[in-house]
């Protein structure tokens, strides 16, 4: 395998020309999201350049504190993104979501780095990219699960109230919504697993192959990370919704869903 061909600034700049294609299609289709596209592209560039600079420094100075701070920043950002997308959750539910993201993510990451790979948990070469994939996917899965949960509860208000009036335990009424939302959150990850290797070569594997890693090694890592991602999405969504739904009623079996009764 050859090493990666390094891009100079001119070559790198050429890729931005592709944005013109998107802009042209947006204009023709009258999609008024050109500003968002430009902001997103700019933000991505700035954020990744900054991340690159920080990672270069951390890789040059592999101290546990730097790895820890970087991973904590990722966790904090994931939690912030999920909670800001779900502002209607009550305070206890938000705490449960935050703890689920951090707990499930760190647990799987620890297992992956320490047990599967067998290296030091603070090794930035492994801890940081794996954290990115784990917490990034947790964020997406959880957003999907919470959205499905809150929307289906709102849509089925009549069903919930009817069963509550019949003397049915709130947990028995709400658990089917937990189960359905968990399924919704897991489907994209499982679908991408089905298409993997045939429809798509995933980003991590592509990156490894581009940088000169043998495809056989890259495949092993990719399979391992996909299973880890599926597990972390499942764990974080399940624990968020399973414990979170219990905050939606009190000991008197009265619902505490914002906007319904208060």
């Amino acid at each position, binding site marked *: 395998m050859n090493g990666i061909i390094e891009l100079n600034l001119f070559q790198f700049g050429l890729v931005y020309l592709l944005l013109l294609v998107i802009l042209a299609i947006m204009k023709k289709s009258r999609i008024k999201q050109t500003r968002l596209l430009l902001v997103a592209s700019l933000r991505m560039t700035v954020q990744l350049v900054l991340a690159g600079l920080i990672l270069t420094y951390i890789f040059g100075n592999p101290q546990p504190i730097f790895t820890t701070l970087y991973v904590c920043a990722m966790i904090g950002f994931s939690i912030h993104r999920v909670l800001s997308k779900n502002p209607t959750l009550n305070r206890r539910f938000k705490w449960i979501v935050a703890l689920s993201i951090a707990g499930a993510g760190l647990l799987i990451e620890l297992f992956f780095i320490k047990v599967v790979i067998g290296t030091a948990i603070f090794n930035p070469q492994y801890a940081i990219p794996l954290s990115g994939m784990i917490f990034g996917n947790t964020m997406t899965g959880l957003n999907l699960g919470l959205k499905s949960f809150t929307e289906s509860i709102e849509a089925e208000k*009549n*069903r919930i*109230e*009817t*069963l*509550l*009036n*019949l*003397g*049915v*335990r709130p947990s*028995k009424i709400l658990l089917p919504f937990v189960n359905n939302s968990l399924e919704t959150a897991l489907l994209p990850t499982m679908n991408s697993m089905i298409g993997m290797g045939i429809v798509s070569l995933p980003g991590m594997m592509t990156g490894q192959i581009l940088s000169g890693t043998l495809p056989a090694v890259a495949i092993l890592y990719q399979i391992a990370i996909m299973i880890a991602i599926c597990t972390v999405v499942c764990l974080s969504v399940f624990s968020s919704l399973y414990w979170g739904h219990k905050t939606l009623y009190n000991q*008197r*079996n*009265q*619902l505490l869903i914002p906007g319904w*009764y208060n």
Partner: protein
Amino acid sequence: MTAILASDKLKFKEILNFPPVAIDRGEVIFITGRSGSGKSTLLKMFNGIYTPDEGAVYYNGIDISELDTLALRKEVLLVAQGVFLFSGTIQDNFAAFYDYRELPPPQAEMIERFLQLCCMNFPLAARCNTMSGGERQRIYLAICLSFCPQVLMLDEPTSALDAATANRLLQNLRDFAKDAAVTLLIISHDPSLAEKYGDRVIALEGGA
């Protein structure tokens, strides 16, 4: 004689005030009042869905805040305005609601008896999702009646019915309540129905 259901003067959310009430077993009570006067809220305080800010509700002389709310709701059953039915047939719905109450599915004859009580002459295999609002409302009412509650609270049960069906239904409900000593609390905007079928009318003040 201890009232089956009673309350002090109740306050809820500062703007709503309810007069003290005492309702005996087997009574048929109509609750009237303008929209926003808190009729539905009152029923939700009687089955513990809401807790009053001031005052207490008593079931068989016991403050309901000391009772298990799930057990209370099985005895003081509220049929709210919005009717929910599962997809499937009438029989499927009986089975599904019985399953939620952790009871075995009822016999066909029993289902038919309660459907007739609610003026519904439909086969048990009829699908509920093609039925009108009034028909769905009566199927749900039949399911609730079949649970044999001590108190049955109905929030505008005749709102989607024509006058003849409404009269037949209320007569059947009144007869059933008197035979089985079931207490009925019925919210209605129709004073003539309240006069005709109620033992008493509680008129709530306020509202729009």
